[in-house]
């Protein structure tokens, strides 16, 4: 389900989309991203609406939970592969809790949810430049 959508765009700020099924986490991340200078243009609580929103909004960053109620976050990442958006996977689990598909996912990187912070995100984004 598409939960939030900002159509007006402040063109100077990088845009972000949050795809996660936990409302409290989305709220916290929204604050964190805004503090980091992102404009959060949308939120989705499942994989299908995440894909739909990402294609419609073409955000600079997609913060994507690995475990979603319908599709896997890895399926969503595969659907977005080749696009402009940078995808960062997040999860409350550790990388070793996932199999080979996770390691081969076409994403910028992974941040454990409890370690998610402005600097952690900046480091990952800078690495990609």
């Amino acid at each position, binding site marked *: 389900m598409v939960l939030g959508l900002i159509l007006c765009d402040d063109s100077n700020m990088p845009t972000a989309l949050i795809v996660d099924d936990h409302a409290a986490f989305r709220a916290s991340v929204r604050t964190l991203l805004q503090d980091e200078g992102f404009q959060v243009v949308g939120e989705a609580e499942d994989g299908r609406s995440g894909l739909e929103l990402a294609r419609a909004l073409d955000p600079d960053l997609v913060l994507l939970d690995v475990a979603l109620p319908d599709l896997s976050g890895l399926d969503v990442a595969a659907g977005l592969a080749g696009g402009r958006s940078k995808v960062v996977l997040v999860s409350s689990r550790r990388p070793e809790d996932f*199999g*080979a598909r996770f390691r081969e996912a076409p994403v910028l990187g992974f941040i454990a949810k409890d370690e998610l912070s402005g600097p952690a995100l900046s480091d990952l984004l800078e690495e990609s430049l």
Partner: protein
Amino acid sequence: MKTLRLVLLAAGLALGVIAYRVQIHNLGVFTTPARASAIVIGAWLFLVAGIVAWSRRPANRLGPLMTAAGIALLLRQLRYSHDGVLFTVFFIVGELSYWVVAHAAFAYPSGRLTDRLERLLIKSGYTITFFFTIAILIFYDGSRPLRFFDRAPRGSLISISGHGEVAVTVQKAFVIVVWGILGVVAIALIVRKLVRATPRARRILAPLLIAAITVGLRAIFESVFTFVERPSAILYEYLFWWQIAAFIALPVALLAGLLRARLARAGVGDLVLELEGTPPQGIRDALSRALDDPTLEVLFWLPERNGFVDAAGRGAELPSVDNRTITTLENAGEPIAALVHDPSLLEEPKLVEAAGAAARLALENARLHAQTRAQLEQVRESRVRIVTTADEERRRIERDIHDGAQQRLVALALQLRSAQRRLMDGSDPEVDRLLAATVNELQVAVEELRELARGVHPAILTEDGLAAALESLVSRTPFPVDLDAAEGRLPAQVEATAYFVACEALANIVKHAGASSAIVRTVRQNGLLVVEVEDDGIGGAIAANGSGLRGLADRVEALGGRFRVESPVNGGTRIVGEIPCAS
């Protein structure tokens, strides 16, 4: 009834003598003593076989039918008499006699014509033959000899003179229609009967029906000869003896069938002795031999289930298909067992009854055995359910931890981190320090919850399967582990059991073994998933002593598998679980 049979037997024997004399005195060069006596002996064999069958199985109509066939075949010979009354009456009876024989052959072994087409054939045979013979007698005036008769004229009581040629033509038509066409139909129906019979019934029917086919073929040849002006005498001689041989074979085959049933009943005596030393699972085979039915199944009645089970205690339904018949064996009004057998055994109710009585005690024992097996099977199924339910519960707890407390703590940590960031103006360093400490504590709590959830049931096992879960497990083990895991998914309880074997084994190695390295291997072979964990530690582990290993053994055995620990002192430890997997 016994008197009637004796009278018929005596009358038949006397009639045989008369039939012989009628042939010799009336057919002249058209017969010989050998041929005349062969015909009488063939008919007598029918008579005797019929009387024997009648006395053995009074309720079965086959005995009276065979007796009637024997008498009719003897009466047939009286048609050769030059007396007008005898000729007229027995010309009709004589031709009908072959249909009595066919009737008996098709009615074997029950004595009844159960098939619609067979009934139609026999009825048509009787009716068409009757009207043809009447027609022949109406036109026969002695001016032209009839087929199979000598040249001397006979007086038909219903004759219209001046139509001798028509009589011969009608007789030809009769031979073509009745012996030729109906003969072919009869053979086709016999072949059909053999093809459609169950294997056991086919073995019983085959000799009789093959003899019947031989008779039928002889009739068809006769029909073909109506188109030949003068068939060779030698050929006719051969065909005569062919016919005699087939007519002798028919009652002999019937007697053999009867004898076979008697021999089988005698074999029931051996069954009693055989069953004394037979284990419960061998009873079916012993009964199958005694009843000569390889398809026999024995099912046991379990009152507490209100249903049947097989010898292994597995629930079984009584079949309701046409080619299986069920005989229920009872003791004091209570069912013990059901024999699911070939329907041909219904023709030998005494055999089934005798075998059932002989096997009653053994069957009662086997029933108790099956009952125990059924209870064990219930326990086994219950153990599988316990393991499966426990796994599902563990998965649910893992999801609850992940989706509930873990997510809330993570969100809280993020919010505190945001708050911390907004307060980073240095106005109150104590608040800043407190917030940092709280976030750290929260991270520790999240990590502990993660470990707890992983230990309860790793999500990777559900999502990516055993090989990925083992890879994750090995990567967290604090010493080198060589992993060789079979790829591919298996039923959830199999994967979970194999995972927990490896997990517990590695945990034991860390705690007790003092090992420097280990090997974890999973292989699929012969319908089993074999999971093996080996270390180079101090050994000396005993499954019975460690509750962890004992629990693993219980878990593996609950799924019908085997678990063993090889752990010689100072020789390392090898733990092997063999878990049946459906694919």
